[in-house]
């Protein structure tokens, strides 16, 4: 006798558990355990993981690195936006991308199948690094230099969209990555 909203029988903790519940707990519990193991295992069996490599920095220090990087490897001005340099770093090198209101700089050009250590940071507020249409998303913080090693597996023109709200110009904030053969 009783309801969900009345006090239970005094010995409720010793009442037997019905079969429906037991079987469900076993099934659901096994799946939970599987998901836990699979998420860990993906670090070895999968090719998409964050290394979580990051360094404390300052916007000034980071801006300087981006400037040096841009000056060193610029190959041309971009066709879509001639004010933006296109930077083609050699495979394996450090690539510095800076988010600021409201632009991702510089534009970079990668080679398919080659790896790059891509640094992501912000010069002012939090921003989003959202590579489209590939759909890879990271957060860019001011004061933190995050490193993700990326190996493009397809060629084409990829947009970087800011997907962390960053003020009134947020929807105008874009960047670009070219990947060639």
């Amino acid at each position, binding site marked *: 006798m009783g309801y969900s909203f009345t006090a239970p029988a*005094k*010995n*409720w*903790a*010793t009442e037997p558990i019905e079969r429906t519940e037991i079987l469900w707990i076993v099934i659901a519990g096994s799946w939970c355990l599987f998901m836990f193991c699979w998420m860990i295992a993906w670090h070895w069996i999968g090719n998409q993981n964050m290394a979580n490599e*990051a*360094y*404390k*920095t300052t916007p000034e*220090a980071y801006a300087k690195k981006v400037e040096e990087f841009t000056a060193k490897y610029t190959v041309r001005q971009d066709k879509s936006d001639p004010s933006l340099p296109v930077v083609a770093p050699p495979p394996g090198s450090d690539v510095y991308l800076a988010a600021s209101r409201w632009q991702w700089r510089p534009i970079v050009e990668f080679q398919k199948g080659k790896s790059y250590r891509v640094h992501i940071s912000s010069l002012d507020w939090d921003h989003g690094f959202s590579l489209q249409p590939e759909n890879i998303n990271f957060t860019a913080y001011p004061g*933190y*230099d995050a490193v993700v090693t990326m190996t493009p597996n397809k060629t084409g023109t990829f947009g970087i969209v800011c997907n962390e709200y960053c003020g009134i110009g947020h929807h105008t904030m874009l960047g670009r990555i070219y990947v060639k053969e």
Partner: protein
Amino acid sequence: MSNEESFRPTVLQRILDDINFMMCLGLVIPTVFYTLWGVMEVATIPLGK
């Protein structure tokens, strides 16, 4: 009444019924594993070269 006196709840029941203990668990566990551990993660990010 004597019947009531002799009733001994199981350990599980006594734990679940002790709402003050539950409050302690609910504050200590997330504070340690999420907040403190998380803050340590941020604090130990190395300085860039």
